[in-house]
C-alpha cells in the first residue's frame, strides 16, 4: 500500500489537491454570493437574506438546490453545440486559472512527493494565467451568439470587444512588476517582495501604484463586473449573454464569474501586495500570534450574538460555532509552533478577502459605464497610462537599479 502511494504520489497528490481546491473554491463562491447580497443590502439599508438559517447563512445551499432541480428550457433555434459548450468552457477556464496560483510559502512532502500550497508551480505562471483569461472571451461570446437572441448577441459582441480592449491594459500594467521581479513566476515575484524583509514597505504597491490601479480596473473589466458589466447590462440587454440560460448552465456562468473574481483578487495580492507575506517586518515575531488573537474576540462575539438570537436553530448553531472558534484560537495560543505554518495562508486569504469586499463594495456604489465611454476610457486613458508606467519603471530601474 505505502509503496504504491510513494510510487504514484506524483499522480495522486495533485489530484487530491485539485479536489480540495475545487471544493474550497465552490464553497467560497457560494458564500461569496451570500456575502455580496448581505453587504449590498446593508449598503442599501436593507436586511438581505435572512430567512434560511441564521443570518441567511444557509441561503447558498438553498440556491444550489434550486439551481440543480430547476427546469432547463432550451430556446428555439439555438446552436446546440455552442449553446452547451459556452458555459462549460467558461467554468472550466475560470477554475483552471486558479491552478497556477501559490497560496503559501511552505513546501512539504507527502509520501515522499515534495509539493507546496497550490496546484502547479510553472515558471511562467503569470503568462499561463493571461493565456487562460484570454481564452475566457469565447465562453461569453459563444453564449451570446448561440442563444439566437439579439440582446445576447449584442452582449457577446460587447464582451468580446471589451475583453480584447482591456486585455492590453491588463498585460501592460503588469510589466512594471515583471521588470522589478525579472521573472514570470508568481512565486518568485512574491519572494522578490520579501527580499528586503522590511514587510509592508517592500511591497510592489508603492513603486507600482499606477500599475496597480490600471491592473485592477482592467481586471474588473475582464471579469465583467460592475462598473464594466456591459455584457450583462440588465437595463439595456435584459441579462446580456446569459439571458437564455437557466438553472445549472446559468449557475456555471455565475460560479465562473465569482471564481474569476477570486483569481483576480489573488493576482492583485500576489503582484502588488506581497502575496502571503505579513505586512510586518520579519523581526517582529510576536505578530505571528495575530491570527489567533483575532480569532478569540471574533469567537466571543459570535457566541454572544448566538445566545440572543431569536430562532432556536440559531441559538443552537451560532454558539457552537463561536465556541469552536474560541477553541481554535486557544489551541493556536497553546501550540505556537503551528502559527508559523498558518501565517502565509492567513495573510494571503485576508488580503484576498479585502479585494473581494472591494469588488462587492463597488457593485454597491458605482454606476455602469456607457459603451462608448468604456471604449474611450480603455483605449485613450488606461492604455496610455499603463504604457507610461512601463516606461517610467524601466527608466527608474535604469537609473537607480532595483531598489
Amino acid at each position: 500500500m505505502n509503496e504504491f502511494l510513494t510510487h504514484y504520489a506524483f499522480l495522486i497528490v495533485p489530484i487530491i489537491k485539485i479536489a480540495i481546491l475545487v471544493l474550497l473554491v465552490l464553497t467560497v463562491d457560494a458564500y461569496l454570493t451570500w456575502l455580496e447580497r448581505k453587504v449590498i443590502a446593508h449598503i442599501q439599508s436593507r436586511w438581505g437574506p435572512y430567512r434560511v438559517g441564521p443570518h441567511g447563512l444557509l441561503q447558498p445551499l438553498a440556491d444550489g438546490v434550486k439551481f440543480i432541480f430547476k427546469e432547463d428550457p432550451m430556446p428555439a433555434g439555438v446552436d446546440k453545440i455552442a449553446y452547451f459548450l459556452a458555459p462549460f468552457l467558461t467554468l472550466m477556464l475560470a477554475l483552471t486559472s486558479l491552478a497556477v496560483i501559490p497560496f503559501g510559502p511552505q513546501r512539504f512532502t507527502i509520501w515522499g512527493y515534495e509539493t507546496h500550497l497550490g496546484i502547479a508551480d510553472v515558471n511562467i505562471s503569470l503568462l499561463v494565467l493571461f493565456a487562460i483569461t484570454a481564452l475566457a472571451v469565447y465562453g461569453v461570446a459563444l453564449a451570446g451568439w448561440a442563444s439566437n437572441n439579439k440582446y445576447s448577441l449584442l452582449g457577446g459582441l460587447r464582451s468580446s470587444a471589451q475583453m480584447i480592449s482591456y486585455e492590453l491594459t491588463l498585460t501592460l500594467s503588469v510589466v512594471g512588476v515583471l521588470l522589478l521581479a525579472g521573472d514570470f513566476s508568481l512565486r518568485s515575484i512574491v519572494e522578490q517582495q520579501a527580499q528586503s524583509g522590511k514587510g509592508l514597505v517592500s511591497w510592489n504597491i508603492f513603486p507600482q501604484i499606477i500599475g496597480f490601479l490600471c491592473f485592477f480596473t482592467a481586471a474588473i473589466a475582464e471579469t465583467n463586473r460592475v462598473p464594466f458589466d456591459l455584457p450583462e447590462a440588465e437595463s439595456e440587454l435584459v441579462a446580456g449573454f446569459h439571458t437564455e440560460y437557466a438553472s445549472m448552465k446559468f449557475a456555471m456562468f455565475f460560479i465562473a464569474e465569482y471564481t474569476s473574481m477570486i483569481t483576480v483578487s489573488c493576482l492583485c495580492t500576489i503582484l502588488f501586495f506581497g502575496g502571503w507575506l505579513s505586512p510586518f517586518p520579519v523581526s517582529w515575531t510576536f505578530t505571528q500570534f495575530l491570527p489567533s488573537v483575532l480569532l478569540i474576540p471574533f469567537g466571543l462575539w459570535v457566541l454572544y450574538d448566538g445566545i440572543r438570537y431569536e430562532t432556536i436553530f440559531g441559538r443552537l448553531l451560532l454558539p457552537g460555532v463561536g465556541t469552536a472558534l474560541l477553541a481554535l484560537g486557544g489551541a493556536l495560543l497553546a501550540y505556537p509552533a503551528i502559527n508559523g505554518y498558518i501565517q502565509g495562508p492567513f495573510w494571503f486569504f485576508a488580503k484576498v478577502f479585502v479585494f473581494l469586499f472591494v469588488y462587492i463594495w463597488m457593485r454597491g456604489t458605482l454606476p455602469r459605464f456607457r459603451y462608448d465611454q468604456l471604449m474611450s476610457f480603455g483605449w485613450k486613458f488606461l492604455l496610455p497610462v499603463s504604457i507610461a508606467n512601463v516606461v517610467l519603471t524601466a527608466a527608474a530601474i535604469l537609473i537607480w537599479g532595483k531598489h
Partner: protein
Amino acid sequence: MTAPLIIFFVLAALAIFGAVSLILQRHPIYSALSLIVVMVALAGLYLLMGAEFVAAVQIIVYGGAIMVLFVFVIMLLNAGLEERTNFSGLATYAGIPLALAVSGFIAAAIARSGGYLPAPAPSGALTSTKTLSMLLFTEFVYPFELTSFLILVAILGAIVLAQREN
C-alpha cells in the same frame, strides 16, 4: 514509448483533428473554434519542446486576440452556412489533388532532410524568456522596429477601411 512521445501524439492528433474539422465544418464559427483547437494544441507542443514563452504568446495573441477578432467579425456579419458553389472548375476538380500533392512534396522533403537534424534539446533548458528578449532587442532590433511600424500601418489601414465614408 515515453511520456513526451505520448503527449506529442495526443496533441498532434488534436491538431490534425482541428485542421480537418476546420475544413469540414460548414459554419465559419465552428471553423474558427476548430482553428482555436489547433492553436491550443500547437501551444501544447511548444511547451513540450520547452518554448514556453512562444507557447504563451501563441495562446494570448492568436487565441486571445486574432481569433477573437475572427469570431467577432463572423458574429458581426452574421455569417450563415457557407454555400458550396463550384464556379471555378479548376478549383473543383484540380484543387484538392494538387493541394495534397504539395503537402506530399513537403512531407517527403522533410522526411528526407529532417533525418539529419539532432533530437530536440531537453525542454526549457534552451530558451528562457530572457535569452529570447535579449536576441529580440539586440540582434533582431531592426526587424523588430520594422514590425512595430507594420503594426502601426495596419492599425491606420484598419481604421481607414472600417470608417463609414461620409
